């Protein structure tokens, strides 16, 4: 089947993600969108899929990449690059991964360039959005985590789906 489980580079982390969440920690799935590291709360995620056949939807908002079939349910695909005001995927990219989330009984797929690992992150370490953050990003992000040398933007699924 087309469904894939996440193939994180660090299986140990995956195992850790399976442990009961500490109340002080939130568990995120990391994704990369045009080199930017983002995190989506694991509890919001229904499925992670590999590259899918996506049907374009004419006249739809630009952020809507199209729709795809997930085991008989129609999933609306949201292009995160476009949603976050980033340049489109370069030619020759092997295709976007789908992170499927649910909202009001409808399924949406967030298209990311790469899906990384499952990370438990202490809530206390989450920093508020920098005030200078781009307004689009500030709107959809609930905070920032430092992961080694990189910054992870925490994505609010509700907000990211508020299109149009």
């Amino acid at each position, binding site marked *: *089947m087309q469904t894939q489980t996440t193939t994180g580079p660090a299986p140990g982390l995956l195992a850790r993600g399976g442990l009961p969440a500490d109340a002080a920690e939130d568990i995120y799935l990391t994704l990369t969108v045009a080199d930017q590291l983002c995190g989506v709360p694991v509890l919001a995620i229904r499925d992670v899929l590999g590259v899918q*056949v996506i*049907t*374009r*939807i*004419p*006249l*739809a*908002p630009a952020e*809507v990449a*199209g*729709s*795809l*079939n997930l*085991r*008989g*349910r*129609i999933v*609306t695909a949201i292009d995160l690059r476009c949603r976050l005001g980033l340049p489109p995927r370069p030619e020759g990219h092997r295709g976007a991964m789908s992170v499927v989330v649910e909202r*009001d009984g*409808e399924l*949406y797929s967030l298209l990311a360039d790469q899906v990384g690992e499952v990370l438990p992150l202490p809530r206390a370490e989450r920093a508020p959005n920098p005030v200078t953050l781009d307004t689009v990003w500030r709107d959809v992000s609930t905070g920032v985590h430092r992961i080694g040398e990189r910054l992870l933007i925490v994505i609010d699924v509700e907000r990211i*789906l508020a*299109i*149009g």
Partner: protein
Amino acid sequence: MDDLLADFLTETQEGLGALDAALVRLERAPDDIATLSEVFRIVHTIKGTCGFLGLTRMEGVAHAAENVLGRYRDGTLRVTQSGISVILGAIDCIRAIVAGLEGTGAEPAGNDSALIASLDAVASGEAVPVPAVSVAAKPVAEASPPVSAAPPVIVAPPPTPAASAAPSQPSAEPEAGGPNAPPQTIRVTVDVLEGLMMLVSELVLTRNQLLQLSRNGADSAFAVPLQRLSHITSDLQEGVMKTRMQPIGNAWAKLPRLVRDLGVELGKKIELDMRGAETELDRQVLELIKDPLTHMVRNSADHGIETPEQRIAAGKPEAGRIMLNASHEGGHIIIEIADDGRGLNAERIRQKVLAQGLATEAELAAMPEREIQRFIFRPGFSTAAAVTAVSGRGVGMDVVKTNMERIGGTIEVRSKDGRGTAFVVKIPLTLAIVSALIVEAGGERFAIPQIGVVELVRVGGEGAPQLERIKNSAVLRLRDRLLPLVNLSSLLHLESPAKEESAFVVVTQVGPHVFGIIVDRVFDTEEIVVKPVAPILRHVTMFSGNTILGDGSVIMILDPNGIARATGVGAESGEGEAERDGKRQAVAHRSDQRTALLLFRAGDSTPKAVPLGLIARLEDVERERIENAGGRPLVQYRGKLMPLVPLGGHWEQSMAPERQPVLVFSDGDRAMGLMVDEILDVVEEHMMIDGAGERPGFLGTTVIGGKVTEMLDTAWWLRQAGEDWFGQDAQQEAGNGCRILLVEDSAFFRNLVIPAIGAAGYSVTAVADAEEALRLREAGAVFDAIISDIAMPGMDGFALARALREGGAWRDLPLIALTGRADQADIERGRAVGFTDYVTKFDRAALLESLRQCLSAPVVG
């Protein structure tokens, strides 16, 4: 025992449903032996089975009811309304017991002695003046044996060798009230069905992958079983989809009884006419619309239908009629609930709106009637003068509307005072299965619901019809009509790789409008399950949903209604939204009335037409009589000189035929003639003029008798006769330069009316809609009289009249209504809102006379 009880309950539920309808039928036709037998059989079955199951309370009631029915059947008792009422009461009692059984598995406690007593009273013929009263106890005693005879039914089937005994068993059963071949049904929870649906979809995908693999590999050992698997999967998918569908009749089953009870309670005679009960829709949707539908029918019976006395006084048949009609239309289910009652009282709605402060008087005046009627959908709005037990409590239509909107439906109301009210509910086929045509445009595939598709036409290529262009819009001449075309690729902003020259046209019908959709390719038809689009895509009205095709790909379903609205093809169907958005791109001016047209030929071979009403006379003028004065042909006509204008362009005496056909247009004692080559015919046609590609002297083209025909622009040709010819004359004419404002949405009629009254010496300003007229008023324009069309998009003539009469600079101006139809009711309505006079379109003489009178007499506002 539990299984037995469950079976009994299912069967009894069905029986009860059928009983309600049958009893109401019986009441209306007491001599219908078939219905009577059916009723008797059902009640008998229920009684027999519950005796067997030991349900004594239910048995007692059923038994007493059966006694009455038995006497009806034997003909020893006449069917009466009161008798039926008591039996219906018994049915209700049984229903209540069944409900209790379902809940607890045991009969609820209760005392039915009063009910049984009244049933017995009916059975013994009390209060019924039938002389032959037999002993009431006798049938009771007789009826018992079948109950005691029931046990043999459960005796295990006789051992196989006893073949002779087997036939006797089934033959005994029907007599004992056994199964009368009820439809075999079981109850399945929706979750199970949903789960099945999901699994089947997954199975389809897996099947497709397997097929793909087998096509790539050479291993043919799998090919045949795989093919079988594929077929079975398809059948399974179809079967599972069908489990969700139910005929709408299921939601209507209770209505005959409801209407009957209401009729008795309110002292009205009401007939219920149900059509399209077999229309299938998703059971989920069915559940959701059941209550709103019931409410609307109740409303019709209570508010809509008058009492028999009122109806007779109004010249209507004594019995009122409520009609339910369900049908599929372009990816929607349309349910119409109509009655022929008193209609909505617009005046009362208006008062109520004012009283509740929902709108100001000025706003109301500017509103078309439809808008005013829509106030009944506001919360807490009820115009019922009295609150009855049935309705009028001020909760109702707003709840209905909310419920409909919740499932993505719409509700419209049409009503005519004194003639009836119709509610039209349009529900999307949220999960309904439809047959759809799969097409391709701009490299993408789309589904078009088959219901809206009239035919498919291949265009371009050898021997196929060709696309034609009028300016930039494509049209197709299909048999005798000019079909407006919409290019799907450009409509959806897709790049179209294929050339239009070899395309397909999907001829589509939306309501009365027919248009063509140009697509690149046509694939196949497929049964699809319509799924609603995600909420973030709801604003794209071009799609009614999306679906997953057999090969697993997602595809958008086109909504022909949406396409029609977006392109203006169906703009005048009364929706109005498109017009108000200012997006109107109407490609055609349409008039619903038929007009007598004179067909003739002049110059080229294209036939030309002019409304017969504009022509004063047809003349044949001998060539010799035509004179030439200063390069202009003239003829002496009725003692005066009449200028002649050659319609074919240049005119030369030597080339002219011996007798020259001339169309004479006259005005007062003046006249001008149009010289034509040949007069062809007079036809009555609906005028649908395509204004695109017009050239001077012609308003546009229309199709008459299968031929493209040019419509004459009379005004232009009148000017050709010499502007000062009329202008100079105008000074002495009645018009005397009076300023007239003409409000008329159709360019065609504007072009007819302007020259007609312009020629009489009036100075005419024309606007295309009422809003524009009001803007002119605000801008301080001054006129002496206003002529307005009635039927206009947006604000109509009535609303304009109200707005004008309400105040402002034009309050006292004469106001003449110009209309296609002038029945008495319309005229009275027009006068009521402030029109000074009413004139039919084309009746030029009447219009001029009306203007003359209006302008000469002082008008009282």
